[in-house]
């Protein structure tokens, strides 16, 4: 009698082996689906968080752009810092610094900080 033809408690070995393989496969499919489903859920959660963060970053970038609006910066710098555009006559290159130190230009009259105009 071949090995496959042997009987164990009345059942042929080949049948038992086939059932065992079937059980392993069923368990395998179940585990694969369960684990994959769990990972899918985790990935989806992470992706939702990433999307939410991306949306938040976009909101913050828009907020920064709004706060850095040049007209607003100009208004604030004029009102609170007394700053204004620098005319070409007050612009020099680094190698002209020594000459500028010898012949300084008069300080221009600017509005006092905190005095909106």
């Amino acid at each position, binding site marked *: 009698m071949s090995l496959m033809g042997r009987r164990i408690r009345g059942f042929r070995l080949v049948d038992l082996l086939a059932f065992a393989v079937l059980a392993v496969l069923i368990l395998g499919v179940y585990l694969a689906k369960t684990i994959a489903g769990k990972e899918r859920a985790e990935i989806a959660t992470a992706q939702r968080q990433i999307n939410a963060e991306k949306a938040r970053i976009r*909101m913050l970038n828009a907020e920064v752009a*709004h706060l850095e609006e*040049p*007209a607003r910066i100009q208004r604030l710098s004029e009102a609170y810092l007394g700053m204004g555009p620098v005319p070409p006559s007050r612009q020099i290159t680094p190698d002209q610094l020594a000459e500028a130190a010898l012949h300084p230009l008069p300080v221009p009259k600017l509005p006092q900080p905190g005095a909106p105009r």
Partner: protein
Amino acid sequence: MSLGEQTFGGSPVYRWLLRRMWGLEHAFERSRASGRAEDDTRIRILFVLALFILGFATLGVGATRAALFSDVLKGDGIEAAAGVPRADLVDRNGRLLAVDLPHFGLYIDPREIWDLNETRRDLSVALPQVAPERLERALRANRRTYLIGGLTPDQRDRIDDLGLPGVSFEPEEKRVYPLDDTAAHLIGFTDSGGEGLAGAELAFNEQVRNPGVGNAAFPLSIDVRIQAALEDELGKAADQFHPKGAVGLVTNVHTGEILALASWPTFNPNRAGEASPDARLDRAASSVFEMGSVFKAFTMAIGLDTGVATPQSTFDARQPFHLGYRTITDYEATHKILTMVEVFQHSSNIGTAKLGEAIGPARMSRYFDALGLTRPARVELLESARPLTPKVWNDDAIASISFGHGIDVSPLALARGYDALLNGGYLVPLTIRKVEPGTKVTGPRVVSNRTSLEVLQLMRANVTGGTGRSADIPGLNVGGKTGTGDKFEPSLRRYSHSKQVSSFAATFPTDGPTSAPRYFVFMLMDEPQRDKTGLDPTGGIVAAPAVGRVIERIAPFLGIEPRPAFTPFQTAQAAGPEVGGGQ
């Protein structure tokens, strides 16, 4: 022929399968024939088991493959679903101009509302922008109704915290312009469905919506810093002279890039629907103006390029000049014989008309065509307006067109023509898209390099000793030409002396070769009023000083450093032959 044979033909696989099937059937028959029915049953069970195993093995492989190599890991699926419908618009330095942000729509389902009065009261306070009638209609509806969209997450949270049953939210994307009215006309706006309706949003609607673009930012040519300086100075000038409308432009003469475009009055594209059509009108692209003397630069360039005149040629401006049906006079009569440089400096209509007559209608028409002044400005903006040009180019037409009457063009068309005069003679298209550094932009040559250099010198001479003196900024060698055109009154069928279009077309720096970095700056006011000084609101009064201040402010952003003064035609030069002697 069997179905199997039709499907597989006589292939070895099919023959093998057929043999196995017959072998199995024969095994059953042999079992029955030999009286071993249990073997028959066993073989059948084994066969069914084998089929189950095969099926589950296939399922197992498929499930494992799906788990390990799912598209979820790549992130594309979810990303695309949550992706924005329009790409961000940014300026040439990456500063955000337009962005899609998540907003929320508010829905009311009256069937779920417990306390109608409480819901009505709380929503009226939380959403004052909703008309009471509209709210009432939603509260009385017999189904779930959309009430309002565009709520920010903060607004959504505030309303959500009220805990009102029957009030729910759904996410929606909304186009937001974080810089409010900065560059509003150039950026444009979209409708609530995300379709571009004006400006760059309309011009690049397909590219911005193209899925291939994804979230990548779409860079425009403007520089927000330059735009802000231009708008600030244009606004201040408009406050001073109270025009009907005003335009400001800054372009790179070599690439045709529009670095700033301002139209006054302006509007906030976040609330474009609330703005008046007048505020939404892009006067730089959609309006045409009879601009007057800024056109003299074109006539001078044509005269120089055709060899009709040189900077030293003379023109007798002592008497009014009759050409065609017109008698041409000067705004500030010099009663002198003027060189071409002086004609330009004094903005002499007589001298320019004489030059136009010498050039002739055919050549003038050909050059105006070549300079793009007889067609809508070539630019991506769909608003680009068609100019109004003379039907016949004859002496009557020349009498007007040589100094900017009888032809109406958009500020963009004028800028394109000027760019060609200032960049060495090439007519390049204007663009509102960023041109990457190092990109060579070419176009047909319309004037020679020498003509271009001479025009630069003429424009500089006009600022050092002509009508554009108030635009001179020491160290930047500004050149320019003033323009003051009386407006035609259709009701009176004549030109008005009280309604004008005043402008100043400038370039800087004017020194160096034609290939040197150079920019064109233009400002125009439509029907400016006298300010408290009481001076005539001419281009030299209303636009030239403002252009000078713009140039002073934007030069550092453009990397233009202060330089030694450039003063062409300073030394007395021998007068050349007189041009256009006819009266």
